[in-house]
């Protein structure tokens, strides 16, 4: 699963730490999501989408092998 978290973070001038604090997880979790090593739960994905005012589908996209 790919995502546009890093781009959105840059657009909103947020650090991983700041985004992590906003959604209530650790910075390592945000880092893992950005690298595609961890797929967030629906509730976390929704919280992230609220921060960036984007739909979950815009932030996260399925890849062929998903």
């Amino acid at each position, binding site marked *: 699963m790919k995502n546009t978290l890093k781009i959105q973070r840059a657009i909103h001038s947020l650090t991983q730490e700041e985004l992590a604090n906003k959604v209530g997880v650790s910075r390592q*979790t945000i880092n893992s999501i950005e690298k595609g090593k961890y797929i967030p739960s629906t509730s976390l994905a929704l919280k992230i989408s609220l921060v960036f005012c984007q739909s979950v589908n815009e932030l996260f996209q399925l890849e062929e092998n998903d």
Partner: protein
Amino acid sequence: MEKLTLLPYRFKKYAWIGLFAFLVATIIIKISGVDLSEDTKELLKNILQSGILLCLLTLTIAAGKQEDELTIQIRIKAFTNAFIFGVGFTAIVPFANLLFDGEFNLQSRFELLLMMFAVFFISYYSIKKKTE
């Protein structure tokens, strides 16, 4: 993600202190050469082993500094690995003992549980390292 019921983070510190104390006590008893009766030795051994196991259990179920859904998922995977190892070990080792020693038995429960804890910690930290 469902939340796991874990002990507060401060219990990690207590567990480390307890583990250190029990290990030091074990070493002191081993090297001091105090003449104890067999019953007392057995009792001391059981107390120390139970203490060590309780401290290790506390370490595994105490929350990390920052517990979130990623660490919960890693914890669940590590628990699963330890469980599978424990069951596999319990099922296979008696056959291995039968083959090499001629006796169909399992090693002590203490050794089995120690190895399960080892599998848990190795799994937990290696999965954590991989996902970071």
